[in-house]
């Protein structure tokens, strides 16, 4: 039996609205208009113990709402959700012992105190035996590199340092499941790499099942075998990362800066993702188009000043999966 089972999981929020201006606000006092907002729109998935899953999607796609339902914070509007045999919101407190959660935008560490103070409080809350606690701490200090800033108040730490502390805090009580909601927002590549290395290690060593939410595809590339892609509350893709790439009409993005703004109809037959004056962003598939050929073709007709090849962002992947962009290469 899978560790997590979601069947036709839905979450609908009620948003209260009122008309514009003071007039609207005053009318809103007496007549509240409300409209349903579908955050998660009937998704199905299973997660097996020990998996490391990348949960991707643009902002507002429903990732956080899903994590909050998995954590027992939010009650699903309909559908079924079981985590290790329990309904998270009904057995919230038992569920809480089995999970570790990191919300990237918030902190569970005490701002004015060094990290070990917060850890000690969590030790008390979860009733972690001293020997086990010491072992955990030694592991974190070593592999998360917490030693470098172990005695500094959290407020003096860099974003990356703090996040390493947050991840340790979420794993202290040896949860079966770790939910990470955008943990790497605003971090530089080096720090991301270190965190990635740690997560892969803890996933293999302790068998912690990890659900990593992000809108950064790069991050998932080397750690997750499985990717779930969500957009507007619907699961658009669930499977291997390679297969996701295969399904996209663009797996590579090329940004070209031309000498002058090219005519509007210049790129007939090419997939143009974005146009901004003389800067044009193309998407193409490496399997069907060689980047060299494309560059040669462009350079033979126009002055090219600069070329940059990048991995597609999650927005590009979403739009090329459904909706397909303008034409295909």
């Amino acid at each position, binding site marked *: 039996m899978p560790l997590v089972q979601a069947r036709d999981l839905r979450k609908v929020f009620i948003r209260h609205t009122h008309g514009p201006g003071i007039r609207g606000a005053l009318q809103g006092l007496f007549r509240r208009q409300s409209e349903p907002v579908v955050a998660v729109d009937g998704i199905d998935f299973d997660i097996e113990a020990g998996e490391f899953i990348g949960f991707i999607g643009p902002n507002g796609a429903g990732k956080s709402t899903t994590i909050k339902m998995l954590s027992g914070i939010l009650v699903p509007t309909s559908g079924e959700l079981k985590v290790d045999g329990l309904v998270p919101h009904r057995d919230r407190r038992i569920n809480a012992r089995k999970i570790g959660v990191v919300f990237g935008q918030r902190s569970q560490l005490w701002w004015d105190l060094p990290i070990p103070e917060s850890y000690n*409080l969590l030790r008390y809350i979860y009733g972690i035996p001293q020997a086990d606690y010491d072992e955990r701490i030694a592991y974190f200090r070593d592999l998360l590199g917490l030693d470098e800033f172990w005695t500094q108040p959290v407020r003096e730490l860099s974003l990356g340092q703090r996040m390493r502390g947050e991840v340790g805090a979420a794993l202290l009580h040896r949860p079966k499941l770790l939910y990470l909601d955008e943990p790497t927002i605003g971090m530089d590549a080096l720090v991301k790499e270190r965190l990635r290395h740690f997560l892969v290690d803890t996933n293999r060593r302790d068998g912690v099942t990890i659900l990593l939410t992000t809108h950064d595809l790069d991050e998932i590339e080397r750690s997750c075998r499985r990717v779930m892609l969500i957009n507007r509350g619907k699961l658009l893709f669930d499977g291997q990362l390679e297969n996701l790439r295969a399904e996209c009409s663009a797996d590579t993005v090329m940004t070209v800066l031309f000498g002058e703004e090219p005519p509007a109809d210049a790129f007939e037959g090419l997939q143009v993702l974005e146009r901004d004056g003389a800067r044009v962003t193309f998407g193409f598939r490496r399997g069907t188009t060689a980047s060299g050929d494309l560059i040669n073709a462009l350079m033979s007709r126009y002055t090219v000043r600069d070329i940059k090849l990048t991995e597609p962002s999650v927005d590009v992947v979403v739009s090329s999966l459904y909706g397909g962009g303008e034409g295909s290469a």
Partner: protein
Amino acid sequence: MLNSAKWWLGLGWMSLKMRVASQISYNRWSYFSLFIAQMLSYLSDMALVWAMFRAFQGVDGWSLYQVILLNAIYLMSYGISQAFTVGLWDSNDLVANGTLDDYLIRPLNPLVHLMARNFNVGYLSHLTTAIITIAVIYPHLGVAWGVLHWVFLAVSIIGASLINAALTIFPAATSFIWTRQSLLSLIQSIRFSFNKYPLGIYPTVVRIFLTVVIPIAFLNYYPAASLLGKAPLALWPLITLAVGVLMMTAALAFWRWGLARYSSSGS
């Protein structure tokens, strides 16, 4: 039950030490000076009442010192309740910024956790002020209290603390419905404004309001009337305790309802 109470006290104690350490990490004297500032502010409040009543020779059959006792009893119950419920003052942020989620991911009751985590020993200043005040004015009250009087004073203060706590929990829980509520500030100003003088000086409508709607008359006026021999001794302290237990039960039920609503509608 006893074990869990001990466990929560342990959590409260740890959090308290951490919060004091946090404060001291900026300025080691700030905590102490805040304490002194609080005491001075309330002592000057008492002095103001004293100054006013010295001119007027009491009001509504209450002497100057009896009115000061009124204030001291209120201050004591406010200090005790607020030491626990001060964390609820951020209820708007709890809901709007999602800080509440950080409590909901723990294997604990979120309300008790919130209270334990934010338990504030600074309110000892209220308690100290009230005790000093009572010690100073007691000889002037014109009463000779026996053991039973002191017991009923304690009963009154427990009841009043429960009422005061409920008067914080209830409006705080409205944050679950109106994300930006200001009911808490409203109740705060009511309980601070209408507690300084005997209930008898207000028009009947106000008296009924302060007894039935926002029953802050139980915080000090009714119990003090009993303790000062203006009513049967056991009567008002026991009613105050009953009102406290009732209001607390209702406030907790309302909080639970609001929390359930929050997690199902996520307003």
